[in-house]
């Protein structure tokens, strides 16, 4: 029994929560569950089939040793933790880009409104 894979997931989760707090990302639990669970179920099903087919395998040296079918519990947790990180990454990206868009729009609307700017504000 070893906890490296679990520790790796804990590290990703800690980073995700730190980013969420730093960027003030809203993560309503219900919305997160509704979004993440179907994706997790689908990708776990893929994982089950892939392990059965021998596409990849897990090294028991790094696992807690608890399995559900052919899936270590860490692998199931992976499909909850990583999509949560992806949601935070997606929300940060949207927030940053929308912020940039707003700044640009404000600048453009100032230019269009005809208010004299510091440069070229005098009429000839």
């Amino acid at each position, binding site marked *: 029994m070893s906890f490296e*894979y679990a520790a790796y997931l804990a590290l990703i989760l800690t980073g995700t929560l730190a980013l969420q707090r730093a960027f003030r990302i809203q993560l309503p639990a219900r919305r997160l569950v509704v*979004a993440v669970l179907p994706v997790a179920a689908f990708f776990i099903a893929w994982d089950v089939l892939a392990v059965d087919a021998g596409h990849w395998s*897990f090294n028991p040296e790094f696992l807690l040793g608890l399995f559900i079918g052919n899936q270590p519990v860490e692998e199931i947790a992976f499909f909850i933790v990583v999509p949560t990180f992806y949601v935070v990454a997606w929300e940060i*990206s949207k927030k940053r880009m929308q912020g940039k*868009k707003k700044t640009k729009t404000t600048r453009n609307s100032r230019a269009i409104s005809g208010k004299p700017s510091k440069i070229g504000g005098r009429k000839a």
Partner: protein
Amino acid sequence: MMEYTAAAVAMFLAGLGLNLKFNPVFRKNQAAIMVATGIVVVAQLVFDNLTVATGFWHFNDAATLGIRIPFMPLENLFFGLALFLFTALFWEWSPRSHRRSSG
């Protein structure tokens, strides 16, 4: 042969297609897509290479193209991007608790 390659690329394309067709937030935020994709790719390159190099997972070379960057199979990149695309799709579809009234 190369079943993981085929599955990962198919899932990536399916995720991309579904987002373009059914996720207006995704379509309208192309700059955000680029930034988020960058974050996902960098995170995956760092974490997957660490774990694959350490030996958490073993990948069957018969199921892949055999291209590694540098330890992680190329297919993992498509797997991660597919996971991101499906997560973004379901996140935007999931009901928000506080909706602003349009009136």
